[in-house]
Protein backbone atom coordinates (compact mmCIF):
# COMPACT_ATOMS: atom_id res chain seq x y z
CA UNK A 1 0.00 0.00 0.00
CA UNK A 2 3.03 2.21 0.42
CA UNK A 3 3.60 3.18 -3.16
CA UNK A 4 -0.06 3.00 -4.14
CA UNK A 5 -1.76 6.38 -4.17
CA UNK A 6 -5.27 5.06 -4.74
CA UNK A 7 -6.82 1.86 -3.50
CA UNK A 8 -10.43 0.78 -3.39
CA UNK A 9 -11.78 -2.21 -1.47
CA UNK A 10 -15.05 -3.82 -2.47
CA UNK A 11 -16.33 -0.41 -3.54
CA UNK A 12 -20.08 -0.24 -4.15
CA UNK A 13 -22.28 2.62 -5.24
CA UNK A 14 -25.99 2.08 -5.65
CA UNK A 15 -28.56 4.55 -6.94
CA UNK A 16 -32.35 4.56 -6.81
CA UNK A 17 -32.53 2.57 -3.56
CA UNK A 18 -30.27 -0.17 -4.87
CA UNK A 19 -32.01 -0.68 -8.20
CA UNK A 20 -29.05 0.78 -10.07
CA UNK A 21 -25.73 -0.80 -9.13
CA UNK A 22 -23.35 1.69 -10.70
CA UNK A 23 -20.37 0.13 -8.89
CA UNK A 24 -20.73 -3.41 -7.67
CA UNK A 25 -17.57 -4.34 -5.80
CA UNK A 26 -14.58 -2.60 -7.31
CA UNK A 27 -11.04 -3.30 -6.19
CA UNK A 28 -8.33 -1.31 -7.84
CA UNK A 29 -4.87 -0.17 -6.91
CA UNK A 30 -3.02 2.63 -8.61
CA UNK A 31 0.60 3.45 -8.00
CA UNK A 32 2.04 6.88 -7.48
CA UNK A 33 2.97 8.45 -10.82
CA UNK A 34 1.02 5.96 -12.91
CA UNK A 35 -0.90 6.93 -16.05
CA UNK A 36 -4.15 4.96 -16.13
CA UNK A 37 -6.99 4.95 -18.59
CA UNK A 38 -10.42 3.62 -17.72
CA UNK A 39 -12.57 2.29 -20.53
CA UNK A 40 -15.84 0.47 -20.90
CA UNK A 41 -19.29 0.83 -22.42
CA UNK A 42 -21.58 3.66 -21.61
CA UNK A 43 -23.26 3.30 -18.22
CA UNK A 44 -20.72 0.79 -16.87
CA UNK A 45 -19.79 3.03 -13.97
CA UNK A 46 -16.63 4.81 -15.10
CA UNK A 47 -17.75 8.28 -14.02
CA UNK A 48 -19.12 6.92 -10.79
CA UNK A 49 -15.75 5.32 -9.97
CA UNK A 50 -13.94 8.55 -10.80
CA UNK A 51 -16.29 10.52 -8.56
CA UNK A 52 -15.58 8.20 -5.62
CA UNK A 53 -11.83 8.47 -6.09
CA UNK A 54 -11.94 12.24 -6.41
CA UNK A 55 -14.02 12.64 -3.26
CA UNK A 56 -16.92 14.18 -5.17
CA UNK A 57 -19.32 11.64 -3.74
CA UNK A 58 -19.39 8.95 -1.05
CA UNK A 59 -19.71 5.21 -1.73
CA UNK A 60 -22.64 3.11 -0.57
CA UNK A 61 -20.14 0.69 0.94
CA UNK A 62 -16.49 -0.27 0.67
CA UNK A 63 -13.42 1.90 1.07
CA UNK A 64 -11.39 4.40 -0.90
CA UNK A 65 -7.84 5.15 0.20
CA UNK A 66 -6.27 8.27 -1.21
CA UNK A 67 -2.63 8.89 -0.37
CA UNK A 68 -2.94 6.43 2.50
CA UNK A 69 -6.00 8.04 4.08
CA UNK A 70 -9.43 6.42 4.23
CA UNK A 71 -11.82 8.95 2.69
CA UNK A 72 -14.64 7.64 4.89
CA UNK A 73 -12.85 9.16 7.90
CA UNK A 74 -13.18 12.68 6.53
CA UNK A 75 -16.17 14.56 7.86
CA UNK A 76 -16.00 16.92 4.91
CA UNK A 77 -14.53 15.91 1.60
CA UNK A 78 -13.93 19.44 0.35
CA UNK A 79 -10.49 19.45 1.98
CA UNK A 80 -9.53 16.37 -0.05
CA UNK A 81 -10.89 17.87 -3.22
CA UNK A 82 -9.07 21.15 -2.83
CA UNK A 83 -5.70 19.76 -1.80
CA UNK A 84 -5.26 16.25 -3.19
CA UNK A 85 -7.04 15.98 -6.50
CA UNK A 86 -7.51 17.99 -9.64
CA UNK A 87 -10.59 17.21 -11.68
CA UNK A 88 -11.15 17.81 -15.37
CA UNK A 89 -14.74 17.49 -16.52
CA UNK A 90 -15.98 16.51 -19.92
CA UNK A 91 -17.48 19.97 -20.19
CA UNK A 92 -14.95 22.54 -19.09
CA UNK A 93 -17.23 23.92 -16.31
CA UNK A 94 -15.39 27.22 -16.21
CA UNK A 95 -17.30 30.15 -14.73
CA UNK A 96 -18.39 32.29 -17.69
CA UNK A 97 -18.24 35.63 -15.87
CA UNK A 98 -14.58 35.16 -14.98
CA UNK A 99 -11.43 35.41 -17.08
CA UNK A 100 -9.19 32.40 -17.59
CA UNK A 101 -6.86 33.73 -14.91
CA UNK A 102 -9.67 34.19 -12.41
CA UNK A 103 -10.98 30.72 -13.14
CA UNK A 104 -7.58 29.22 -12.38
CA UNK A 105 -7.49 31.17 -9.11
CA UNK A 106 -10.87 29.79 -7.98
CA UNK A 107 -9.50 26.68 -6.18
CA UNK A 108 -6.81 28.86 -4.55
CA UNK A 109 -9.43 30.70 -2.50
CA UNK A 110 -9.25 27.77 -0.10
CA UNK A 111 -5.50 28.05 0.47
CA UNK A 112 -3.54 30.79 2.15
CA UNK A 113 -1.28 33.19 0.30
CA UNK A 114 -1.30 36.70 -1.04
CA UNK A 115 -3.47 37.71 -3.95
CA UNK A 116 -0.43 38.62 -6.02
CA UNK A 117 1.27 35.28 -5.35
CA UNK A 118 -1.89 33.45 -6.42
CA UNK A 119 -2.17 35.53 -9.54
CA UNK A 120 1.43 34.89 -10.41
CA UNK A 121 0.98 31.17 -9.93
CA UNK A 122 -2.17 31.09 -12.02
CA UNK A 123 -0.36 32.92 -14.80
CA UNK A 124 2.49 30.45 -14.63
CA UNK A 125 0.09 27.51 -14.87
CA UNK A 126 -1.63 28.98 -17.89
CA UNK A 127 1.76 29.41 -19.56
CA UNK A 128 2.75 25.88 -18.66
CA UNK A 129 -0.34 24.62 -20.46
CA UNK A 130 0.39 26.91 -23.37
CA UNK A 131 -2.52 29.32 -22.94
CA UNK A 132 -0.77 32.19 -21.20
CA UNK A 133 -2.08 34.55 -23.87
CA UNK A 134 -5.67 33.76 -22.84
CA UNK A 135 -5.26 34.94 -19.22
CA UNK A 136 -7.57 37.94 -19.59
CA UNK A 137 -10.11 36.25 -21.83
CA UNK A 138 -13.46 34.84 -20.84
CA UNK A 139 -14.33 31.23 -21.61
CA UNK A 140 -17.26 32.30 -23.79
CA UNK A 141 -14.74 33.67 -26.27
CA UNK A 142 -12.52 30.61 -26.43
CA UNK A 143 -12.54 27.47 -28.53
CA UNK A 144 -13.47 24.17 -26.88
CA UNK A 145 -9.84 23.09 -26.82
CA UNK A 146 -8.71 26.36 -25.25
CA UNK A 147 -11.37 26.09 -22.55
CA UNK A 148 -10.35 22.58 -21.73
CA UNK A 149 -6.74 23.65 -21.41
CA UNK A 150 -7.71 26.43 -19.03
CA UNK A 151 -9.63 23.78 -17.09
CA UNK A 152 -6.43 21.73 -16.86
CA UNK A 153 -4.62 24.74 -15.44
CA UNK A 154 -7.39 25.11 -12.89
CA UNK A 155 -7.06 21.43 -11.94
CA UNK A 156 -3.37 22.05 -11.26
CA UNK A 157 -3.98 25.11 -9.10
CA UNK A 158 -3.31 23.53 -5.73
CA UNK A 159 -0.59 21.09 -6.81
CA UNK A 160 -2.71 17.92 -6.68
CA UNK A 161 -1.24 14.44 -6.32
CA UNK A 162 -3.72 13.04 -8.81
CA UNK A 163 -5.35 14.44 -11.90
CA UNK A 164 -8.61 12.85 -12.91
CA UNK A 165 -10.22 13.47 -16.24
CA UNK A 166 -13.71 12.28 -17.10
CA UNK A 167 -13.58 12.19 -20.88
CA UNK A 168 -11.56 15.41 -21.02
CA UNK A 169 -11.38 15.18 -24.81
CA UNK A 170 -14.99 14.11 -25.27
CA UNK A 171 -16.21 17.56 -26.26
CA UNK A 172 -13.42 18.72 -28.59
CA UNK A 173 -12.26 17.73 -32.04
CA UNK A 174 -9.58 15.09 -32.60
CA UNK A 175 -6.73 17.52 -33.04
CA UNK A 176 -7.54 19.47 -29.89
CA UNK A 177 -8.07 16.16 -28.11
CA UNK A 178 -4.58 14.98 -28.97
CA UNK A 179 -3.14 18.29 -27.84
CA UNK A 180 -4.89 17.97 -24.50
CA UNK A 181 -3.67 14.42 -24.02
CA UNK A 182 -0.14 15.56 -24.88
CA UNK A 183 -0.30 18.13 -22.13
CA UNK A 184 -1.63 15.66 -19.58
CA UNK A 185 0.97 13.04 -20.51
CA UNK A 186 3.72 15.61 -20.23
CA UNK A 187 2.54 16.54 -16.74
CA UNK A 188 2.61 12.87 -15.83
CA UNK A 189 6.03 12.28 -17.34
CA UNK A 190 7.78 15.42 -16.19
CA UNK A 191 6.06 16.29 -12.92
CA UNK A 192 5.20 12.79 -11.79
CA UNK A 193 1.52 13.61 -11.37
CA UNK A 194 -0.65 10.50 -11.23
CA UNK A 195 -3.05 10.60 -14.15
CA UNK A 196 -6.36 8.79 -14.46
CA UNK A 197 -8.38 9.36 -17.59
CA UNK A 198 -11.77 7.96 -18.50
CA UNK A 199 -12.16 7.73 -22.24
CA UNK A 200 -14.16 6.21 -25.04
CA UNK A 201 -11.43 6.67 -27.58
CA UNK A 202 -9.23 3.59 -27.75
CA UNK A 203 -6.37 5.44 -29.47
CA UNK A 204 -6.23 7.71 -26.47
CA UNK A 205 -6.49 4.83 -24.03
CA UNK A 206 -3.52 3.05 -25.51
CA UNK A 207 -1.19 5.90 -24.59
CA UNK A 208 -1.69 5.00 -20.95
CA UNK A 209 0.71 2.75 -19.08
CA UNK A 210 -2.22 0.65 -17.97
CA UNK A 211 -5.86 0.36 -18.93
CA UNK A 212 -8.64 -0.57 -16.55
CA UNK A 213 -11.65 -2.04 -18.29
CA UNK A 214 -15.08 -2.00 -16.72
CA UNK A 215 -18.44 -3.61 -17.41
CA UNK A 216 -21.66 -3.41 -15.42
CA UNK A 217 -20.09 -1.83 -12.38
CA UNK A 218 -17.21 -4.28 -12.17
CA UNK A 219 -13.59 -4.39 -13.28
CA UNK A 220 -13.08 -6.91 -16.06
CA UNK A 221 -9.42 -6.21 -16.68
CA UNK A 222 -6.69 -4.17 -15.01
Amino acid sequence: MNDSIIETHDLKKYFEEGRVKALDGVDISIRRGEYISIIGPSGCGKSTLLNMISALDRPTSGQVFLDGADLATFAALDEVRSHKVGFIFQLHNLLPQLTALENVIIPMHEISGSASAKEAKARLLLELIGVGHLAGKRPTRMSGGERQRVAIARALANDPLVILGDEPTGDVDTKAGLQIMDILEKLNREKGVTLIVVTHALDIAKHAQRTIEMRDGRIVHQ
Partner: protein
Amino acid sequence: MLFLRLIIKNLFNRKTRTILTIVGISIGIATIIIFGMVSNGLTNSMSTAFKPGKADFTVAKADVADMILSVVTREQLQTVRNTEGVESVVPYVMSLAPFTGNPYFILGGIDPNDLDLLGARITDGRIYRNGDEVAIGRIAAKNYNLKVGDTIVLNNKDYAIVGIFESGVTMQDGGAATTIAETQRLNSYTDNQVSMAMVNINPGLDPRAVADAVEARDTALLCVVDMDDFGSLDQGLSIIDSVSWAISVLAMVIGGIGVMNTIIMSVFERTREIGVLRAVGWKRRRVMAMILGEAIVISLGAAIIGIALGLGVVWLMMQTNMAKSWLDITMEAEIFLQALLVAVVVVILGALYPAYRASRFSPMEALRYE
Protein backbone atom coordinates in the same frame (compact mmCIF):
# COMPACT_ATOMS: atom_id res chain seq x y z
CA MET B 1 -9.30 40.92 -2.12
CA LEU B 2 -9.65 38.22 -4.77
CA PHE B 3 -12.80 37.08 -3.03
CA LEU B 4 -14.27 40.56 -3.02
CA ARG B 5 -13.44 40.89 -6.70
CA LEU B 6 -15.28 37.66 -7.40
CA ILE B 7 -18.32 38.87 -5.48
CA ILE B 8 -18.43 42.10 -7.43
CA LYS B 9 -18.02 40.26 -10.73
CA ASN B 10 -20.94 38.02 -9.83
CA LEU B 11 -23.10 41.05 -9.17
CA PHE B 12 -22.02 42.74 -12.38
CA ASN B 13 -22.76 39.58 -14.28
CA ARG B 14 -26.43 40.01 -13.33
CA LYS B 15 -26.60 43.76 -13.72
CA THR B 16 -30.33 44.21 -14.19
CA ARG B 17 -31.22 42.05 -11.25
CA THR B 18 -28.61 43.67 -9.03
CA ILE B 19 -29.82 47.15 -9.94
CA LEU B 20 -33.47 46.27 -9.38
CA THR B 21 -32.68 44.78 -5.99
CA ILE B 22 -30.65 47.81 -5.00
CA VAL B 23 -33.43 50.14 -6.12
CA GLY B 24 -36.02 48.16 -4.15
CA ILE B 25 -34.03 48.28 -0.93
CA SER B 26 -33.00 51.89 -1.40
CA ILE B 27 -36.64 52.97 -1.59
CA GLY B 28 -37.17 51.30 1.78
CA ILE B 29 -34.16 53.10 3.18
CA ALA B 30 -35.29 56.42 1.72
CA THR B 31 -38.63 55.89 3.46
CA ILE B 32 -36.90 55.45 6.80
CA ILE B 33 -34.82 58.55 6.22
CA ILE B 34 -37.77 60.68 5.15
CA PHE B 35 -40.12 59.65 7.93
CA GLY B 36 -37.34 59.70 10.49
CA MET B 37 -36.21 63.20 9.57
CA VAL B 38 -39.72 64.61 9.33
CA SER B 39 -40.85 63.21 12.64
CA ASN B 40 -37.61 64.33 14.29
CA GLY B 41 -38.00 67.74 12.67
CA LEU B 42 -41.52 68.04 14.07
CA THR B 43 -40.40 66.96 17.51
CA ASN B 44 -37.53 69.43 17.40
CA SER B 45 -39.61 72.41 16.40
CA MET B 46 -42.47 71.56 18.72
CA SER B 47 -40.36 70.89 21.74
CA THR B 48 -38.46 74.13 21.33
CA ALA B 49 -41.81 75.83 20.88
CA PHE B 50 -42.78 74.62 24.29
CA LYS B 51 -39.59 75.70 25.89
CA PRO B 52 -38.84 78.93 24.12
CA GLY B 53 -35.77 80.96 24.83
CA LYS B 54 -35.16 81.62 28.46
CA ALA B 55 -38.22 79.90 29.93
CA ASP B 56 -37.60 76.76 31.97
CA PHE B 57 -40.70 74.84 31.07
CA THR B 58 -44.15 75.05 29.57
CA VAL B 59 -47.35 74.28 31.40
CA ALA B 60 -50.40 73.11 29.46
CA LYS B 61 -53.55 71.11 29.95
CA ALA B 62 -52.92 67.44 30.67
CA ASP B 63 -54.48 64.73 28.49
CA VAL B 64 -55.11 66.69 25.31
CA ALA B 65 -54.70 64.93 22.01
CA ASP B 66 -53.05 67.90 20.39
CA MET B 67 -51.38 70.94 21.89
CA ILE B 68 -53.64 73.19 19.88
CA LEU B 69 -56.50 71.94 22.06
CA SER B 70 -54.81 72.94 25.32
CA VAL B 71 -56.78 75.48 27.37
CA VAL B 72 -55.83 76.68 30.84
CA THR B 73 -57.50 79.31 33.01
CA ARG B 74 -56.04 82.32 34.74
CA GLU B 75 -56.91 80.72 38.09
CA GLN B 76 -54.81 77.72 37.19
CA LEU B 77 -51.95 80.02 36.21
CA GLN B 78 -52.32 81.75 39.57
CA THR B 79 -51.83 78.37 41.23
CA VAL B 80 -48.68 77.94 39.17
CA ARG B 81 -47.48 81.40 40.18
CA ASN B 82 -48.02 80.53 43.83
CA THR B 83 -45.99 77.35 43.61
CA GLU B 84 -42.70 77.57 45.42
CA GLY B 85 -39.74 78.20 43.09
CA VAL B 86 -41.77 79.79 40.30
CA GLU B 87 -40.47 83.24 39.42
CA SER B 88 -42.71 84.26 36.53
CA VAL B 89 -45.49 82.88 34.36
CA VAL B 90 -46.05 84.05 30.79
CA PRO B 91 -49.55 83.32 29.43
CA TYR B 92 -49.66 82.37 25.77
CA VAL B 93 -52.49 81.85 23.32
CA MET B 94 -51.89 79.73 20.25
CA SER B 95 -54.13 80.47 17.30
CA LEU B 96 -53.94 78.98 13.83
CA ALA B 97 -54.41 81.26 10.87
CA PRO B 98 -54.10 79.66 7.40
CA PHE B 99 -51.71 81.72 5.32
CA THR B 100 -50.47 81.24 1.73
CA GLY B 101 -50.06 77.51 1.53
CA ASN B 102 -49.49 76.97 5.20
CA PRO B 103 -52.65 75.86 7.04
CA TYR B 104 -50.71 75.82 10.29
CA PHE B 105 -49.43 79.38 10.35
CA ILE B 106 -49.31 80.33 14.01
CA LEU B 107 -50.62 83.62 15.30
CA GLY B 108 -49.42 83.66 18.87
CA GLY B 109 -50.99 85.83 21.54
CA ILE B 110 -48.55 87.21 24.04
CA ASP B 111 -48.38 90.30 26.21
CA PRO B 112 -45.83 92.67 24.61
CA ASN B 113 -44.21 93.20 28.00
CA ASP B 114 -43.55 89.47 28.32
CA LEU B 115 -41.46 89.06 25.15
CA ASP B 116 -38.27 89.62 27.13
CA LEU B 117 -39.09 86.78 29.46
CA LEU B 118 -39.12 84.43 26.50
CA GLY B 119 -35.83 85.69 25.11
CA ALA B 120 -37.58 87.02 22.02
CA ARG B 121 -36.57 90.40 20.68
CA ILE B 122 -37.73 92.87 18.07
CA THR B 123 -35.13 93.08 15.28
CA ASP B 124 -36.95 95.63 13.15
CA GLY B 125 -39.78 98.11 13.73
CA ARG B 126 -41.58 98.04 17.07
CA ILE B 127 -43.83 95.84 19.17
CA TYR B 128 -47.60 95.62 18.50
CA ARG B 129 -49.85 97.81 20.64
CA ASN B 130 -53.30 96.53 19.78
CA GLY B 131 -55.21 93.73 18.07
CA ASP B 132 -54.92 95.32 14.63
CA GLU B 133 -51.15 95.11 14.67
CA VAL B 134 -48.82 92.13 14.48
CA ALA B 135 -45.14 91.45 14.69
CA ILE B 136 -44.03 88.70 12.37
CA GLY B 137 -41.28 86.16 12.94
CA ARG B 138 -37.95 86.37 11.21
CA ILE B 139 -38.48 83.15 9.20
CA ALA B 140 -41.99 84.17 8.12
CA ALA B 141 -40.68 87.55 6.99
CA LYS B 142 -38.07 85.86 4.88
CA ASN B 143 -40.31 83.07 3.49
CA TYR B 144 -43.17 85.33 2.54
CA ASN B 145 -41.04 88.35 1.73
CA LEU B 146 -42.82 90.61 4.24
CA LYS B 147 -41.50 93.75 5.85
CA VAL B 148 -42.51 96.41 8.35
CA GLY B 149 -45.27 98.57 6.88
CA ASP B 150 -46.85 95.71 4.91
CA THR B 151 -50.31 94.38 5.59
CA ILE B 152 -51.03 90.73 6.24
CA VAL B 153 -54.47 89.15 5.87
CA LEU B 154 -55.23 86.45 8.44
CA ASN B 155 -58.71 84.98 8.91
CA ASN B 156 -60.10 87.64 6.55
CA LYS B 157 -58.76 90.46 8.68
CA ASP B 158 -56.08 93.00 7.73
CA TYR B 159 -53.26 93.35 10.21
CA ALA B 160 -50.54 95.96 10.00
CA ILE B 161 -47.05 94.56 10.30
CA VAL B 162 -45.31 96.86 12.76
CA GLY B 163 -42.27 94.80 13.65
CA ILE B 164 -40.19 91.70 13.08
CA PHE B 165 -39.15 89.50 15.96
CA GLU B 166 -36.75 86.69 16.53
CA SER B 167 -37.09 84.05 19.23
CA GLY B 168 -34.86 81.30 17.90
CA VAL B 169 -37.87 78.97 17.85
CA THR B 170 -38.68 77.77 14.31
CA MET B 171 -42.40 77.44 14.91
CA GLN B 172 -42.81 80.95 16.32
CA ASP B 173 -40.36 82.65 14.02
CA GLY B 174 -42.32 81.06 11.19
CA GLY B 175 -45.52 82.76 12.38
CA ALA B 176 -46.71 86.04 13.81
CA ALA B 177 -47.61 87.45 17.22
CA THR B 178 -50.23 89.89 18.48
CA THR B 179 -52.08 90.71 21.68
CA ILE B 180 -53.61 88.08 23.94
CA ALA B 181 -57.05 89.65 23.61
CA GLU B 182 -56.99 89.38 19.80
CA THR B 183 -56.04 85.70 19.80
CA GLN B 184 -58.60 84.97 22.51
CA ARG B 185 -61.20 86.47 20.23
CA LEU B 186 -60.00 84.35 17.29
CA ASN B 187 -60.05 81.16 19.39
CA SER B 188 -63.43 82.07 20.95
CA TYR B 189 -61.82 81.98 24.39
CA THR B 190 -63.13 83.99 27.30
CA ASP B 191 -60.94 86.63 28.82
CA ASN B 192 -60.12 84.03 31.44
CA GLN B 193 -58.67 81.43 29.07
CA VAL B 194 -55.23 81.01 27.44
CA SER B 195 -53.62 78.05 25.68
CA MET B 196 -50.63 77.52 27.88
CA ALA B 197 -47.92 79.37 29.75
CA MET B 198 -44.15 79.54 29.84
CA VAL B 199 -42.65 79.36 33.31
CA ASN B 200 -39.39 80.82 34.60
CA ILE B 201 -38.12 79.53 37.93
CA ASN B 202 -35.83 80.95 40.56
CA PRO B 203 -32.13 80.53 39.72
CA GLY B 204 -30.41 77.42 40.98
CA LEU B 205 -33.52 75.29 41.22
CA ASP B 206 -34.14 72.07 39.34
CA PRO B 207 -36.86 72.68 36.70
CA ARG B 208 -38.01 69.08 37.02
CA ALA B 209 -38.61 69.45 40.77
CA VAL B 210 -40.54 72.70 40.34
CA ALA B 211 -42.56 71.16 37.51
CA ASP B 212 -43.43 68.20 39.71
CA ALA B 213 -44.59 70.57 42.42
CA VAL B 214 -46.83 72.37 39.90
CA GLU B 215 -48.33 69.10 38.69
CA ALA B 216 -48.91 68.03 42.29
CA ARG B 217 -50.87 71.17 43.01
CA ASP B 218 -53.09 70.84 39.96
CA THR B 219 -53.30 67.42 38.38
CA ALA B 220 -55.11 68.85 35.35
CA LEU B 221 -51.84 70.51 34.33
CA LEU B 222 -48.89 69.01 32.51
CA CYS B 223 -45.41 70.48 32.53
CA VAL B 224 -43.14 70.00 29.55
CA VAL B 225 -39.56 70.27 30.77
CA ASP B 226 -37.89 68.36 27.97
CA MET B 227 -38.72 66.36 24.86
CA ASP B 228 -39.68 63.28 26.84
CA ASP B 229 -42.64 65.04 28.45
CA PHE B 230 -43.69 66.17 25.07
CA GLY B 231 -45.08 62.89 23.88
CA SER B 232 -47.56 62.78 26.70
CA LEU B 233 -48.82 66.22 25.80
CA ASP B 234 -49.02 65.75 22.11
CA GLN B 235 -50.38 62.37 21.20
CA GLY B 236 -50.48 63.55 17.63
CA LEU B 237 -46.73 63.55 17.55
CA SER B 238 -46.50 60.07 18.97
CA ILE B 239 -48.97 58.91 16.34
CA ILE B 240 -46.77 60.41 13.63
CA ASP B 241 -43.86 58.64 15.22
CA SER B 242 -45.64 55.27 15.27
CA VAL B 243 -46.91 55.64 11.75
CA SER B 244 -43.44 56.54 10.57
CA TRP B 245 -42.13 53.42 12.24
CA ALA B 246 -44.86 51.20 10.88
CA ILE B 247 -44.24 52.42 7.34
CA SER B 248 -40.50 51.99 7.71
CA VAL B 249 -40.88 48.46 9.06
CA LEU B 250 -43.31 47.56 6.30
CA ALA B 251 -40.97 48.98 3.67
CA MET B 252 -38.12 46.90 5.00
CA VAL B 253 -40.14 43.70 5.34
CA ILE B 254 -41.16 44.04 1.71
CA GLY B 255 -37.56 44.84 0.84
CA GLY B 256 -36.36 41.77 2.76
CA ILE B 257 -38.75 39.46 0.98
CA GLY B 258 -37.69 40.98 -2.34
CA VAL B 259 -34.04 40.34 -1.53
CA MET B 260 -34.79 36.78 -0.49
CA ASN B 261 -36.65 36.22 -3.70
CA THR B 262 -33.92 37.56 -5.99
CA ILE B 263 -31.14 35.81 -4.14
CA ILE B 264 -32.99 32.49 -4.14
CA MET B 265 -33.47 32.85 -7.87
CA SER B 266 -29.87 33.72 -8.48
CA VAL B 267 -28.73 30.80 -6.31
CA PHE B 268 -30.85 28.26 -8.18
CA GLU B 269 -29.81 29.67 -11.51
CA ARG B 270 -26.24 29.14 -10.43
CA THR B 271 -26.70 25.62 -9.12
CA ARG B 272 -24.23 24.17 -11.55
CA GLU B 273 -21.72 26.93 -10.93
CA ILE B 274 -21.93 26.35 -7.21
CA GLY B 275 -21.46 22.64 -7.87
CA VAL B 276 -18.23 23.48 -9.71
CA LEU B 277 -17.01 25.59 -6.81
CA ARG B 278 -17.73 22.76 -4.39
CA ALA B 279 -16.11 20.27 -6.77
CA VAL B 280 -12.84 22.19 -6.88
CA GLY B 281 -12.74 22.15 -3.11
CA TRP B 282 -14.67 25.17 -1.86
CA LYS B 283 -16.02 24.64 1.61
CA ARG B 284 -19.70 25.10 2.37
CA ARG B 285 -18.72 28.10 4.44
CA ARG B 286 -17.08 29.80 1.50
CA VAL B 287 -20.10 29.31 -0.73
CA MET B 288 -22.22 30.83 2.00
CA ALA B 289 -19.77 33.71 2.44
CA MET B 290 -19.92 34.40 -1.28
CA ILE B 291 -23.72 34.63 -1.35
CA LEU B 292 -23.83 36.71 1.84
CA GLY B 293 -21.01 38.87 0.52
CA GLU B 294 -23.06 39.62 -2.57
CA ALA B 295 -25.97 40.55 -0.32
CA ILE B 296 -23.81 42.88 1.77
CA VAL B 297 -22.48 44.68 -1.29
CA ILE B 298 -26.10 45.08 -2.46
CA SER B 299 -27.13 46.48 0.91
CA LEU B 300 -24.26 48.97 1.02
CA GLY B 301 -25.11 50.16 -2.47
CA ALA B 302 -28.75 50.42 -1.50
CA ALA B 303 -27.87 52.34 1.68
CA ILE B 304 -25.90 54.95 -0.25
CA ILE B 305 -28.60 55.41 -2.88
CA GLY B 306 -31.41 55.26 -0.31
CA ILE B 307 -29.83 57.92 1.87
CA ALA B 308 -29.25 60.19 -1.12
CA LEU B 309 -32.83 59.65 -2.29
CA GLY B 310 -34.23 60.32 1.18
CA LEU B 311 -32.21 63.51 1.57
CA GLY B 312 -33.34 64.63 -1.85
CA VAL B 313 -37.02 64.18 -0.98
CA VAL B 314 -36.59 65.94 2.36
CA TRP B 315 -34.83 68.81 0.59
CA LEU B 316 -37.73 69.10 -1.84
CA MET B 317 -40.21 69.12 1.03
CA MET B 318 -38.26 71.86 2.71
CA GLN B 319 -38.91 74.08 -0.28
CA THR B 320 -42.57 74.43 0.77
CA ASN B 321 -43.65 77.23 3.10
CA MET B 322 -45.45 74.89 5.46
CA ALA B 323 -42.40 72.72 6.03
CA LYS B 324 -40.15 75.76 6.36
CA SER B 325 -42.11 77.14 9.28
CA TRP B 326 -42.85 73.83 10.97
CA LEU B 327 -39.91 71.55 10.45
CA ASP B 328 -36.68 72.05 12.25
CA ILE B 329 -34.66 69.54 10.22
CA THR B 330 -31.35 68.50 11.67
CA MET B 331 -28.84 66.02 10.28
CA GLU B 332 -28.72 63.41 12.96
CA ALA B 333 -26.16 60.69 12.38
CA GLU B 334 -28.46 58.37 14.27
CA ILE B 335 -31.01 58.23 11.45
CA PHE B 336 -28.38 57.40 8.87
CA LEU B 337 -26.79 54.73 11.03
CA GLN B 338 -30.24 53.33 11.67
CA ALA B 339 -30.98 53.22 7.95
CA LEU B 340 -27.64 51.60 7.21
CA LEU B 341 -28.10 49.06 9.97
CA VAL B 342 -31.61 48.20 8.87
CA ALA B 343 -30.42 47.78 5.28
CA VAL B 344 -27.61 45.43 6.24
CA VAL B 345 -29.73 43.44 8.69
CA VAL B 346 -32.68 43.10 6.33
CA VAL B 347 -30.51 42.09 3.40
CA ILE B 348 -28.52 39.60 5.43
CA LEU B 349 -31.69 38.08 6.85
CA GLY B 350 -33.09 37.85 3.33
CA ALA B 351 -29.88 36.25 2.06
CA LEU B 352 -29.30 33.86 4.94
CA TYR B 353 -31.69 31.16 3.80
CA PRO B 354 -30.64 31.18 0.13
CA ALA B 355 -26.99 31.22 1.18
CA TYR B 356 -27.60 28.26 3.46
CA ARG B 357 -29.40 26.38 0.71
CA ALA B 358 -26.56 27.08 -1.71
CA SER B 359 -24.02 25.76 0.77
CA ARG B 360 -25.94 22.49 1.08
CA PHE B 361 -25.85 21.65 -2.61
CA SER B 362 -24.09 18.33 -3.10
CA PRO B 363 -21.39 18.86 -5.71
CA MET B 364 -22.47 15.74 -7.61
CA GLU B 365 -26.11 16.71 -7.79
CA ALA B 366 -25.28 20.29 -8.63
CA LEU B 367 -22.97 19.26 -11.46
CA ARG B 368 -25.64 17.05 -13.00
CA TYR B 369 -28.11 19.97 -12.84
CA GLU B 370 -28.98 21.38 -16.25
